[in-house]
């Protein structure tokens, strides 16, 4: 490894890491509640709602995120209606916003699947016990369904969180300079592909080790005595 190149690369990557974190934080912050809501909707009694959410999940899980990013950023930009609507254009006109939108939509679909199975596998009696004392569905959800589902979903969701951090790299294809954006530039400037790659990976690894260990600790904290 060439220390000179690494020393040159790190300051750029640090700047990029801030953007990566920004995307990831928004991705988790919006994507998790959104995904949980979709997961709930997929277990709901309304057939239409279920179908719509199923389709959404099928599409966003079934296609590569790169394509989703492209369609959202370049594809939608070709629709003049969207270009004229200030709110829509605010969402996709700017690369960073479009990236966050894509990450949220993508992770939402995966999160929904994780939580859907978690919700389906909850012992029904526990929910009935909550309903039987007249709890509002929202409270049933918040105090019984969600805490129990989270405990089961956490291992799988921790993977999803790590994926969000890594997939945020696709933002570099739509002009957002996060870690990978800078890394691409540095690589073609210096051709020190492996060196820069390894440093870049170290950045992602650091973020993810923090995320994954954090979630592991949370999991341990939440596990109740058997």
């Amino acid at each position: 490894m060439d220390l000179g190149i690494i020393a040159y690369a790190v300051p750029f990557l640090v700047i990029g890491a801030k953007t990566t974190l920004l995307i990831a934080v928004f991705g988790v912050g919006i994507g998790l509640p959104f995904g949980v809501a979709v997961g709930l909707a997929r277990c709901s009694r309304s057939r239409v709602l279920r179908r719509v959410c199923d389709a959404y999940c099928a599409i966003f899980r079934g296609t590569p995120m790169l394509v989703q990013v492209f369609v959202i950023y370049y594809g939608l930009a070709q629709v003049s209606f969207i270009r004229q609507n200030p709110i829509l254009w605010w969402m996709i006109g700017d690369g960073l916003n479009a990236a966050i939108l894509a990450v949220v939509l993508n992770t939402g679909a995966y999160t929904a699947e994780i939580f859907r199975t978690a919700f389906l596998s909850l012992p029904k009696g526990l929910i009935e016990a909550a309903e039987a004392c007249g709890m509002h569905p929202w409270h049933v959800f918040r105090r019984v369904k969600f805490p129990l589902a989270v405990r089961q979903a956490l291992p799988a969701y921790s993977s999803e969180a790590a994926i969000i951090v890594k997939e945020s790299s696709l933002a570099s294809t739509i002009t957002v300079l996060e870690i990978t954006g800078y890394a691409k530039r540095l690589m073609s400037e210096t051709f020190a592909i492996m060196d820069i790659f390894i440093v870049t990976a170290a950045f992602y690894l650091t973020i993810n080790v923090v995320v994954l260990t954090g979630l592991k600790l949370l999991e341990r904290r939440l596990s109740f005595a058997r």
Partner: protein
Amino acid sequence: KDGVLRIGTEGDAPKFSMADPSGKVTGFDADIANGICAELKLKCEFVVQTFSSLVPSMDKDRFDVIISGLGITAERQKKIDYSIPYATTPLYFAVSKDSPLAGLKSLAEIEKALQGKSVGVVTGTTYARFMEKRMHGADLKTYDAVTQLTADLASGRIDVAFADSPTWMDFFATPDGANFTRIDLKIMAMDDPDVLGHGMGVGMRKGNTELKTKVDAALCNMINDGKVKEASMRWFQDDYTIPCKK
């Protein structure tokens, strides 16, 4: 391998290196490669790979040379060896026809006019560096490919784009590009070789001097007998050859 020259190339760069569905590579780079093979009496074997794996693959002897429009810069030369430069493409700014920038003439004027404007370039290119070094006040956006750059220029996300001349020839011919024009200021690599490099060269593993002398000689021959010009005219309708200094 005996009797074969293995060539790494990207395969997805229009006009330069295009791998068709059957895997056959055409384009300016392919012509240069075939020329070199003919000179060296070797059989050409193309290996199509993504850009970021080209250099490590060559390092590990998956192929012998990279011919993929690589610009020669001092920094890159720390990692790989280059042949002599054989061609360079002129660079232009493109703006929409009704833009006030359309009439500008000098780099200084442009630099001033670009303050606060968003400018698009393809990431990692020598001219992206150039933009960064020269256009301080501009909001630089980097793209992975020229198609994305031109798409954003068309959709109005960026005010100005900077790329090589073949890109603009292509783009202006499309319906989207009809409203755009290039600023009449030709920038060549020689204008600022420290940043823009010395033109395109063939990349080789470091220390492979035997091959380098052979390839250099072959290229020099091709330049001198007009083969490079021929290829350049074929793909770009213009002569981008850099004369052989030896």
